[in-house]
């Protein structure tokens, strides 16, 4: 919200002489806030991200949001499931460029380290009109922010922990009135030598995991430049490399190895006129996945042009074009493809009480014109007072997921005749805020979604091939409450979340809950601070879920708790030395996220950061 106000203030109140503050360039970020009226958004603040600095995006989303993250082991593949949809129904972006693999059509959250991002925003529901392909269940938006202030800034962070964890990250930035640089380096070594009970063997003996070693390293270089009063340039380059021993499912003795390497470069140019702003985005994305020595490489080039106008009558208008050039060289096929999309957004506000947004998008890919994608949202402040606010929200929209390159071209088995998956989504919500000594907010959202032509890979003899066969109806409730208050010198913050998700396969007469779709999830947290000392206690619950369609085998629900202790008062000259200690899985709970995938018990992490 702060960011939205900041953007608005930039557009409406910034004087031409204002050359100190550099506006951030980011097509998606503005669209996310400005044209998503009525939809559910979660933004993570800096403190929350700092608590997860040595952990993955998957951990953050699982423990703090209604998303279910399917984790295939410690440091292994982690794929998000929004509102009962699959991993391929989630769009991920970094500084506005898509992160999902074009061959697989999904992302692995375990190799998206939080050191690579300064801001995480999560958007729920189908919003293909706003974000394009794959935003069916929801979307995750990662972005970087320039260093604040002028001169040199830097930090060095070291985390050590159980099972051999060692993680180092470094950030260095320099800023002047017109130019700012930022470099980030990170390295993570996680042998994952945790102990687990091998329930696949007689007597369920204790074993030490010996094939789940995870290593990750990367670098980010960024530049913000304001060449003139009206123009801004932002350039970001991110290189990430991860090597993994794939943790075998219990009962198997596989020794698979996987290496992921990604290079992402994006340049945004923004030119501001009196009431409008032109934006040009260029990006290059290269992904390489090597599995047991077999190489799969993909490349994307993206070029986009965007024009946004804000009138004094509280109207906002945006339109743009984006072209994507794709090349894939996989172990079984090579292909090139181009996609073109045109979009238009309109936003209208009435006296800061009612806001409406309308988004439209048309997407074309080889020989196909994806059905026109509209999205409409409304927010209405039913009660607006100094201390109390009640907001009604509603949104409807369509979503789409194009068949991935593997779906269409994998040899053998690829099916070039697949249709895009389509979704219809609607949601209603109420948000109540109360300000005062005891500040709290509550949000309740009911959603309903239908996904049709869901693509499933099926065996056809020895060869598997995808088909548009599944129709899924989802509906559910999402409740989130946050509060903060002060007692004496103690500052308290608490949060509580609950999600009910009913995800039914309606392909056949008898509808069934989809596998690995828990009906119930919840999370809770309590943070307490006294001066420079802070304690946080958090927990989350994932309910029972079946492992296959109609399967009698249902995994037990599980609840995990984490405890953290932070001290930010240590200083040496001008260097701040924040220290954090945390215990994960405090009660040493034995649990499985997925069937027969061993997970670690209680573990400890100690983090020391030097901040200039």
């Amino acid at each position, binding site marked *: 919200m702060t960011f939205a106000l900041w953007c608005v203030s930039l557009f409406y109140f910034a004087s031409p002489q204002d050359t100190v503050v550099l506006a951030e360039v980011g097509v998606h970020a503005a669209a996310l806030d400005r044209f998503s009226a009525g939809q559910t958004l979660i933004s993570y603040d800096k403190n929350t991200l700092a608590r997860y600095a040595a952990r993955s995006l998957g951990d953050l989303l699982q423990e703090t949001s209604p998303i279910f993250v399917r984790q295939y082991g410690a440091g292994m593949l982690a794929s998000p499931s929004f509102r009962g949809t699959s991993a391929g129904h989630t769009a991920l972006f970094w500084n506005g460029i898509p992160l999902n693999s074009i061959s697989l059509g999904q992302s692995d959250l375990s190799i998206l380290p939080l050191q690579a991002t300064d801001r995480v925003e999560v958007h729920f529901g189908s919003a293909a009109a706003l974000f394009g392909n794959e935003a069916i269940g929801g979307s995750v938006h990662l972005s970087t922010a320039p260093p604040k202030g002028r001169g040199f800034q830097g930090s060095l962070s070291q985390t050590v922990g159980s099972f051999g964890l060692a993680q180092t990250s470094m950030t260095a930035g320099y800023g002047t009135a017109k130019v700012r640089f930022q470099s980030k380096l990170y390295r993570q070594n996680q042998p994952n030598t945790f102990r687990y009970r091998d*329930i*696949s*063997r*007689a007597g*369920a003996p204790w074993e030490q995991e010996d094939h789940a070693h995870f290593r990750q390293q990367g670098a980010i270089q960024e530049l913000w430049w304001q060449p003139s009063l009206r123009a801004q340039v932002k350039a970001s380059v991110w290189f990430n490399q991860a090597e993994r021993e794939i943790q075998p*499912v*219990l*009962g*198997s*003795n596989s020794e698979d190895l996987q290496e992921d390497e990604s290079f992402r470069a994006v340049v945004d140019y923004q030119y501001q006129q009196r009431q409008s702003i032109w934006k040009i985005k260029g990006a290059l994305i290269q992904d390489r996945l090597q599995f*047991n*020595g077999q190489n799969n490489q993909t490349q994307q080039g993206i070029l986009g042009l965007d024009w946004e106008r804000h009138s004094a009558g509280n109207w906002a208008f945006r339109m743009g074009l984006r072209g994507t050039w794709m090349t894939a060289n996989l172990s079984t096929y090579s292909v090139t493809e181009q996609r073109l999309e045109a979009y238009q957004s309109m936003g209208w506000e009435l006296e800061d009480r009612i806001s409406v947004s309308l988004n439209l998008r048309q997407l074309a890919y080889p020989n196909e014109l994806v059905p026109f994608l509209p999205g409409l949202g409304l927010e209405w402040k039913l009660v607006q007072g100094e201390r109390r606010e009640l907001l009604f929200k509603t949104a409807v929209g369509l979503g789409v997921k194009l068949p991935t390159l593997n779906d269409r071209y994998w040899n*053998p*088995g690829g099916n070039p005749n697949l249709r895009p998956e389509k979704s219809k989504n609607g949601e209603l919500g109420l948000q109540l805020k109360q300000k005062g000594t005891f500040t709290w907010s509550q949000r309740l959202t009911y959603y309903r979604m239908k996904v049709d032509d869901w693509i*499933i890979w*099926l*065996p*056809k*003899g*020895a*060869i598997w*091939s995808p088909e548009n066969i599944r129709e899924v109806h989802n509906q559910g409730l999402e409740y989130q409450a946050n509060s903060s208050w002060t007692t004496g010198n103690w500052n308290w913050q608490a949060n509580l979340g609950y999600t009910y998700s009913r995800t039914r396969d309606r392909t056949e007469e008898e509808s*069934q809950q989809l*596998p690995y779709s828990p009906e119930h999830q919840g999370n809770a947290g309590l943070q307490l601070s006294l001066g420079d000392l802070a304690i946080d206690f958090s927990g989350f619950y994932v309910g029972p879920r079946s*492992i*296959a*369609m*109609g*399967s*009698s*085998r249902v995994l037990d629900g599980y609840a995990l708790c984490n405890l953290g202790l932070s001290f930010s008062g240590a200083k040496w000259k001008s260097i701040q030395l924040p220290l954090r200690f945390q215990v994960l899985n405090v009660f040493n709970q034995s649990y499985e996220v997925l*069937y*027969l995938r061993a997970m670690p018990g209680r573990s400890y992490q100690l983090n020391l950061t030097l901040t200039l």
Partner: protein
Amino acid sequence: MNKFSKLILPIFLGVLLFTACDPTGEERPQGVYDAGVLILNEGAFGANDGEVFHLNSTTAILSPNLFEKVNARPFAGLLEDLVLEEDRLYLVANTGKVEVVQPGDFKSIGGVEKDLNQPRSLATARGKLFISDYGPYDANYNTPSSYVAVVQGLDGGVVKKKILVSSKPEDLYAFGSYVFVAGSEGKKVEILDANAELLFKSLEMPGQPVQFLELNGELWVFCYDAQKVYFVSISKSGLSQTKIQSFPVAQATGRIAQGDNDTFYLLTSSGWPDYKDGITVISLATGILTTDWKKGTGFYGIGFDPKKQQIYLANAKGFQGNGEVTVYQKSGAEVSKLEVGRGPSGFLFR
């Protein structure tokens, strides 16, 4: 007959009727699973949720997940084969292990946990276990290091030796001190000396041998290629091929069930992309061939219940969840349908 005999004899006969003798000479009561149909559910790749279901032929009650229910731990593997020998039931998981259970109650009595790669089947000979194994994949997903693993002891233990055989060994058949190996990719039957634990002899086959069959006391091996299926008779004493009967059955899958009166039921599949499955019935005695006795998709296993004279057809239903078994009369009339575990692939009729 004295009083004692009048009293004791019926009891003795009754005990005899309801017990079976094991090799140790101890009497063992009839177990719950000593009768009926055991259904192999292979499970899904990556999930290791293979299991055995039991169908009570009298009450039609289906009991799921026998291994986990009895042993309080999951089977945790892809169930490739179920072998009943030496009064033991061997559950062969192609994910790298063999579990040994008592056939009557499914209680675990041992297993082979380590040093296996992709086990396919098992036979016992000379007090040892012989386990066919594809061996590890190479960089091109070939299996040039296939072997038969030898384990000393019928209740499992450690692998003491690996006898290299041709690529992708499947079914095994033990006779005396010999173990016959169906070397599917090498198109040969290899004969191992169970005492010396060495490869003794190889017999070239016209197609890919996959399944040994006993017919009128003779040993046969079922082979197939893209156009034909072959039934090859092997002399157990001469260790040589004696005769071949071939049939023009295209697209056989290697899955076969032995009916009565020299009748066999074969699964065929056009595979991708058309994907049309069928059952072909062959009479070895008369040479009569009936193609497409049943047609459909998803056919994954077949069995023949000799007591009830019924054909069991397993459908994997795309491995998305529970599979399905359809029971037919020999006339082709459907008797019943059962919802079973994931990836049903075979049957053991007790």
